[in-house]
């Protein structure tokens, strides 16, 4: 699979693009809510986004999410999915590499144990960024620090900055709940709720008052996760009756049902067989048109197959803290890495 840029199918990409603008302006509006200084143009964007929405009583934290733009967004997502599956819309990177995350000098410790130190990297929009590296080098820690999933971990402390669309995720005024609602996450072990398939997906939208057309939203999420055809006849059966691979795709569906901006995946296929893994990988390729994807993987071939950009983390010999060794286009990392540690690792010579 060639990660390089091919010109996208005009129609499909156009639709995705338009909808994505809506999403990002929504994000700007979100941050405008959270922060005191409101740039005038985002304020007006906020107003135009939210005013026509019929249900005035929605919670503030989802005003953007439930704006009417999504009716069309859901349609265009489906068409984009169809296009991508049929191979017509295999868009690689967006022409200009716009970063969604700008991580600066991030260091994370648990108690006195430093897990990662001094990581600076940018994560670009509509790309798959893979994080690879030996066990314990802090890939999960890094990933979970992007959407504040580590907040509840005992002893967790972070320094440096995580800028998301230019806004510090860890700023005092930011609500971590809103961060996680924008930046979805899928875990290593499939963790569906002990509810029906339908309720697994509908749960978060209901919480967020995205109740209009819930059936359609569930279908859209399941289609998006390439699970619809397998489960459409048993939506109200327990999700725990699904196979591991199906459960994992359900978790992905659950994450995309609330239309996040970014999907973080921590070894999503490590508990799955090769066929299920392949279907998850194909799914990634489809999803990246709509979402920005960051994936941790131990499987080097997987990173090489699916990622546009790859970051290699490793443990620093002296401090035993995880550091970012090298971050580049995937083919650079795998064919001509600059750092000898990277080439040792990707060629399997790592001790």
């Amino acid at each position, binding site marked *: 699979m060639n990660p390089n840029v091919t010109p996208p199918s005009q129609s499909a990409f156009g639709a995705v693009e338009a909808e994505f603008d809506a999403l990002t302006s929504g994000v700007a509006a979100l941050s405008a809510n959270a922060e005191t200084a409101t740039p005038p143009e985002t304020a007006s964007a906020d107003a135009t986004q939210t005013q026509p929405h019929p249900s005035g009583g929605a919670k503030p934290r989802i005003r953007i999410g439930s704006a009417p733009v999504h009716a069309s967004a859901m349609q265009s997502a489906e068409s984009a999915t169809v296009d991508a599956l049929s191979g017509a819309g295999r868009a690689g990177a967006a022409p200009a590499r716009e970063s969604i995350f700008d991580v600066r000098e991030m260091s994370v410790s648990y108690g006195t144990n430093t897990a990662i130190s001094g990581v600076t990297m940018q994560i670009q929009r509509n790309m798959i960024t893979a994080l690879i590296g030996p066990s314990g080098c802090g890939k999960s820690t890094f990933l979970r620090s992007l959407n504040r999933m580590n907040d509840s971990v005992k002893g967790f402390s972070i320094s440096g900055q995580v800028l998301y669309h230019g806004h510090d995720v860890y700023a005092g005024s930011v609500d971590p709940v809103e961060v996680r609602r924008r930046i979805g996450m899928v875990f290593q072990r499939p963790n569906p709720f002990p509810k029906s398939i339908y309720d697994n997906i509908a749960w978060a939208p209901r919480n967020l008052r995205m109740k209009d057309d819930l059936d359609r939203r569930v279908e859209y999420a399941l289609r998006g996760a390439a699970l619809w055809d397998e489960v459409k006849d048993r939506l109200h059966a*327990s999700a725990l009756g699904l196979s591991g691979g199906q459960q994992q795709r359900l978790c992905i569906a659950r994450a995309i049902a609330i239309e996040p901006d970014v999907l973080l995946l921590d070894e999503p296929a490590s508990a799955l067989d090769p066929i299920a893994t392949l279907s998850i990988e194909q799914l990634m390729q489809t999803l990246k048109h709509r979402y920005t994807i960051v994936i941790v993987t131990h499987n080097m071939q997987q990173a090489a197959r699916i990622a546009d950009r790859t970051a290699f983390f490793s443990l620093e010999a002296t401090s035993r803290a995880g550091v970012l060794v090298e971050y580049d286009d995937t083919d650079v990392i795998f064919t001509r890495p600059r750092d000898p540690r990277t080439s040792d690792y990707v060629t399997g010579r790592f001790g």
Partner: protein
Amino acid sequence: MSGGSGSLSPALGPAAAARGPWSAGRARGTKTDRFGDALLKSLCAAASLLAVVILGAIFYQVLDGASAAFSQLGIGFLVHEVWQPNFGHFGAATFIYGTVVVSLVTMVIAVPLAISIGLYLSTTASGRVRSVVGPLVEMLAAIPSVILGFWGLIVLAPFLQAHAEPFLHSTLGFLPLFGKGETTGLGLFTASLILTIMVVPIVAAISRDLFLTVPKDLQDGAIALGATRWEVVRGVILPSAASGVVAAAFLGLGRALGEAIATLQVIGGGNFIHASLFGTGGTLASRIAEDALGTPYALQLSAVFYLGAILLAMELVLNLAAQAIMRRFDAFSAVAAR
């Protein structure tokens, strides 16, 4: 392979190793082994049998003791309100009513309170608070009920009578439940509060332990979907622990139904049904405790056994209901776990 045999070799020795793996160590199925098995089996069987026999004996004795009252008072005993042994009036309705009302009020107050405490201790509280408050809550359950009843009589009842009851009466007095109170502060409401204090620690401690067992990855999954803490509690923690919490609540209810001494101390010993919670009354258990010792009339003693039979029947129904509810939850989780 080599690691495994290495760790075994001291026990085996070269000779045993030569005989192959099956003769390694002492052969099982010897006489002593079989004797041990049989002993364990019969001990367990005897213990279970003993429990059944005791249960049967109690049932028999209660029913036997009540037989005189059964034949003389009949089924009308259940609906007859007045209990005045001197005049030969025996009715259980006041005590059935008192038992039901006191239990209901107790559960209505205790269960939400206990679940909140359990949630607080398992999810919100810092480790420090957890390690101090948790044991304190459990210690509450260790207070002997007589002492709790005594405290209710001396402290709680006057307080309720002076402050809580007038307030409740003035705000909710349009409901007959919150009618005018007695002058002593003793009554159904006070009894409910004392029972609440007895039930809360049990239910709180069990639910806290249950909430702590809810898998972290389920909670993480919910948190990663932008759920607030309350949404995680409502959507993941409570449903996962539901069947256990129901079981805990029924355990608490069983305690409330059966508690005699503390109830007797604070319920005011009324012989009539009062619509108001602030009125006096009695529960089956408190009346049994009050009258079981030294009654001059044979019929009264038999009527007390009759009350006991009713209480037994109530507890039995409660137990069956609890099992049915839990089976439903378990059936759900069995489907879920498939």
